[in-house]
């Protein structure tokens, strides 16, 4: 069936399509943060940044940027700052 159509078309073999799709989907899967990693990471970020500035902890958003870019995936943290501290607390 695919025999004749392949003879007359320049279509990519389906296994190449499969490979490309798999590689893309796996690159996303593999970036998945294991459950139980994001929350401690968030807590640690709060702890460190609080030394320098007062932040609104309820407004913190930490996640992986799932857009493929030239530099690869990135960790994006949005942390609302209330005010800078005059001096470090620790």
């Amino acid at each position, binding site marked *: 069936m695919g025999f004749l159509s392949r*003879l007359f078309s320049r279509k990519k073999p389906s296994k190449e399509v499969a490979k490309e799709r798999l*590689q893309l989907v796996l690159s996303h899967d593999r970036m998945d943060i294991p459950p139980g990693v994001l929350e401690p990471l968030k807590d640690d970020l709060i702890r460190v940044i609080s030394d320098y500035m007062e932040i609104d902890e309820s407004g913190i958003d930490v996640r992986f940027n799932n857009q493929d870019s030239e530099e690869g995936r990135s960790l994006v943290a949005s942390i609302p700052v209330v005010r800078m501290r005059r001096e470090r607390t620790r």
Partner: protein
Amino acid sequence: MGETLVITSGKGGVGKTTAVANIGAALASRGYCVALVDADIGLRNLDVVLGLENRIVYDLVDVVDGFCRLKQALIKDKRHDGLYLLPAAQTKDKTAVNPEQMKRICNQLKEINVSDEAGGAKYFDYIIVDSPAGIEQGFKNAVSGADRAFIITTPEVSAVRDADRIIGLLEAEELPDPQLIINRIRPGMVRTGDMMDIEDIVSILAIRLLGVVPEDDAIVVATNRGEPVIENSGCTAGQAFTNMARRIIGEEVPLMNLDVKESLFARLGSFLGLRQR
């Protein structure tokens, strides 16, 4: 001291149970003493694949709950000396056993003397655990007692993706360096570029390969009859499983050539330049 192996996949229907039955039978026919453990509680299948479904009295959950001794639940295979089955329970679910209990069972299997003769001693060389599909408690139970893990996949996008997920989870379970079994490869489709080949899958998953099983009607026939295919020495799938058993015990066995059955039509196609790779 025996070794516990687990065969797992993530995706269902890729051939875990068939692989467990056949690798187990191949090891037993080489003189090793082997226990096959069906960890798929609630959906037991290893018993029917082995043709032992009518001989179950006690199961794994009965052992865990203390209703019987471990040895009472072990079923001796009728064809292979040294092959035993510890069946799963059919009426319970995965939560009937926890990973700690499963680990204990695997350790007990390493120490149990299965000799029938008075004063004789025979211990399991290999314990092979048949994992359920999925990544939930059933999977966690199945891998909890394992020393080595094997991941089985078919050359399909969905199965390979799930295999990749399982590799990550095995790492978390401290079972690094699992080996891959590629099942149901169709040499004809590989040749025409319509199926990922061994190299493609191995390079995507980046793990060591244990073996490759070609698609083989003999598997369907053997499963219908409730007997492992290795009985059928002429069949390529049976040969593939035997080779894997030999690699597990440490022998160097080259991958078999899957192209031998090339049809005239396919050869004509590749002559005409229809071959895609």
